[in-house]
């Protein structure tokens, strides 16, 4: 990994100047739907993202069901920084910096587990699962001056939970989580308030040679790529019933939703859909949790997907892994983790309704994995169609030419297929024929650009 802007003061100044100019140029072309391609593979841009986006905003760390008992923990990253997502002995969630206050070594080396204490292997400093420092070997002999209360593990100053989704922010100041989520709560309620969800097992983790922004912009609502990009899976009769044509649907793309983006495939029928969940599972839902408008959208949902800024995406789909088998509703939550410019780690969790039968949850897992995972029949072709973006974005040619941009102008002609749907009942602006607009995806780059230019002191 390279940290271009830190290499020396002079390099740092030059690189800052270059990125500043790049962001200024982006500001001029963004509303015309043009985004400089080089932001998808640029060391200095990457470094600035870690500071201005992942170091400033709310970032998802995990679901409450991943740490059900006091002492349960999972290692997680915020940007590229190492944290421990832990439920303390007091039952509270914390996001502790995985680094001993003494000399910096990891105090937690396992990816997950249950523990009352984290002990640094270097000199044996020991912390409770709440982060409190409780053990310093030979303290009286060498550290009688040390105030243990001041030397607990560092932790993310802000940790909040919304319907079981736990987010953290490492900046000193940030707006409350619900304010940050804004209109996104209307959608999140439809999944996590209507349904008591739980994560099944451990997430998939894999490395991909693409920038984290490529799948993020895609999950803001690139429904345009599906017929071409996923033809092999659709032809095989797997995936969602709306993609295979098993069920007809209307697609709504949601833009202008407080920086987040969503898409809805609605099956206009008297027959309940609820993402393909069968009646005995739908019975377990908390139907009173939603207002009538939300509930009707949920009832008609075939597939819904979206992204919470900056890098948490999801897809909820009714579908199958084998044309011979029944479809089920499967929910995939994914985090696109930056890992150097032009590279990412994908973390993919599969969730099922907690109160469904074990057999059903197993099918939910199988269908989710079979479609979206490192081996997923849909996912592999997503990655397969992005080959080379990193190379083009990192090229000298892209740096030297102001018109090497990615294009988000779909639906801006005189007779666009995508039109604003006036009767939309939720937050944001809904576009019917939502696969034929880029306005939802452009929202990602608007939010990204605002965050990247928010500090005038650059």
């Amino acid at each position, binding site marked *: 990994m390279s940290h271009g802007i830190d290499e020396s003061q002079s390099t740092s100044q030059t690189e800052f100047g270059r990125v500043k100019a790049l962001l200024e140029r982006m500001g001029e072309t963004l509303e015309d739907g043009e985004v400089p391609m080089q932001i998808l593979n640029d060391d200095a841009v990457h470094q600035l993202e870690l500071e201005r986006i992942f170091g400033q905003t709310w970032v998802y760390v995990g679901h409450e069901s991943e740490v059900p008992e006091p002492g349960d923990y999972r290692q997680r990253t915020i940007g590229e920084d190492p944290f421990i997502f832990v439920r303390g002995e007091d039952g509270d969630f914390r996001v502790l910096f995985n680094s001993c206050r003494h000399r910096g070594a990891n105090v937690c080396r396992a990816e*997950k587990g249950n523990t009352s204490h984290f002990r640094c292997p270097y000199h044996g400093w020991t912390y409770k699962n709440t982060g409190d420092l409780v053990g310093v070997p030979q303290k009286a002999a060498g550290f009688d001056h040390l105030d243990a209360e001041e030397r607990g593990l560092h932790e993310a100053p802000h940790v909040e939970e919304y319907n079981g989704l736990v987010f953290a922010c490492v900046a000193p100041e940030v707006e409350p989580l619900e304010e940050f989520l804004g209109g996104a709560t209307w959608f999140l309620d439809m999944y996590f308030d209507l349904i008591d969800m739980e994560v099944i097992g451990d997430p998939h983790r894999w490395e*991909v040679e693409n920038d984290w922004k490529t799948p993020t912009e895609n999950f803001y609502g690139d429904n345009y790529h599906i017929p071409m990009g996923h033809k092999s899976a659709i032809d095989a009769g797997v995936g969602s019933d709306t993609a295979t044509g098993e069920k007809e649907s209307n697609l709504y793309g949601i833009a202008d939703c407080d920086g987040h983006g969503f898409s809805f495939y609605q099956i206009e029928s008297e027959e309940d859909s609820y993402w393909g969940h069968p009646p005995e599972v739908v019975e377990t839902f908390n139907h009173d949790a939603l207002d009538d408008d939300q509930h009707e959208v949920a009832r008609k949902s075939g597939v819904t997907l979206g992204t919470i800024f900056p890098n948490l995406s999801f897809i909820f789909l009714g579908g199958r892994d*084998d044309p011979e*088998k029944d479809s089920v509703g499967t929910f995939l939550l994914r985090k696109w983790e930056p890992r150097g410019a032009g590279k990412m780690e994908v973390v993919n969790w599969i969730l099922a309704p907690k109160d469904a039968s074990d057999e059903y949850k197993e099918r939910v*897992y199988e269908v989710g*994995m079979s479609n979206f995972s490192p081996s997923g029949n849909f996912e592999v072709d997503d990655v397969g169609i992005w080959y080379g973006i990193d190379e083009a974005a990192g090229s000298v040619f892209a740096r030297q030419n102001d018109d090497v941009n990615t294009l988000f102008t779909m639906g801006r002609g005189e007779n666009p297929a995508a039109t604003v749907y006036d009767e939309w009942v939720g937050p944001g602006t809904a576009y019917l024929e939502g696969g034929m607009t880029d306005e939802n995806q452009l929202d990602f780059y608007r939010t990204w650009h605002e965050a990247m230019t928010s500090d005038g002191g650059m």
Partner: protein
Amino acid sequence: MSESVSNPTLRAECEEFLYHAAELLDDRKLTEWHDLVTEDIDYRVPIRTTRERSNTTEFSDTSFHMKEDWGTLEVRTERMQSDFAWSEDPPSRTRRHVSNVRIVDDDGEEVTLKNNLLIFRQQGDETDPDILSMERHDTLRRTDEGFKIAERRVLLDHTIIPTNTLSIIL
């Protein structure tokens, strides 16, 4: 252990089968490979996590990179041969190195064994290959058409999969 376990002829037969199955995958003869699995095949690639030494297993019993039966393997092998399977067009160049074959048991109908597998994978102009390393626990069933794979557990040496896609069979 039954007497046959130390039988070098049996091990050679099993090796021959595993080499043949690996060759079919390397040569992208996926339908022919699929003919080598039984209709009741149970094929699993569990997710591995980094755990403390004191923990009994690093492999999940609820979450998987692949968890397949005959039908889903048919879907996968057919899809991979589609003209629109972008992850494999141009196709990966793979070379499967099968080694350390150890017979565990033979009850006359089925042979259980362990083997190591190293897959070299490259695509396009890449010069750094993706290397996937794993141990496989296989159950081979004797049929009229010779051995078939009735069960496979792929125990990866990876927690984070170090390749863009698992659009290949392990």
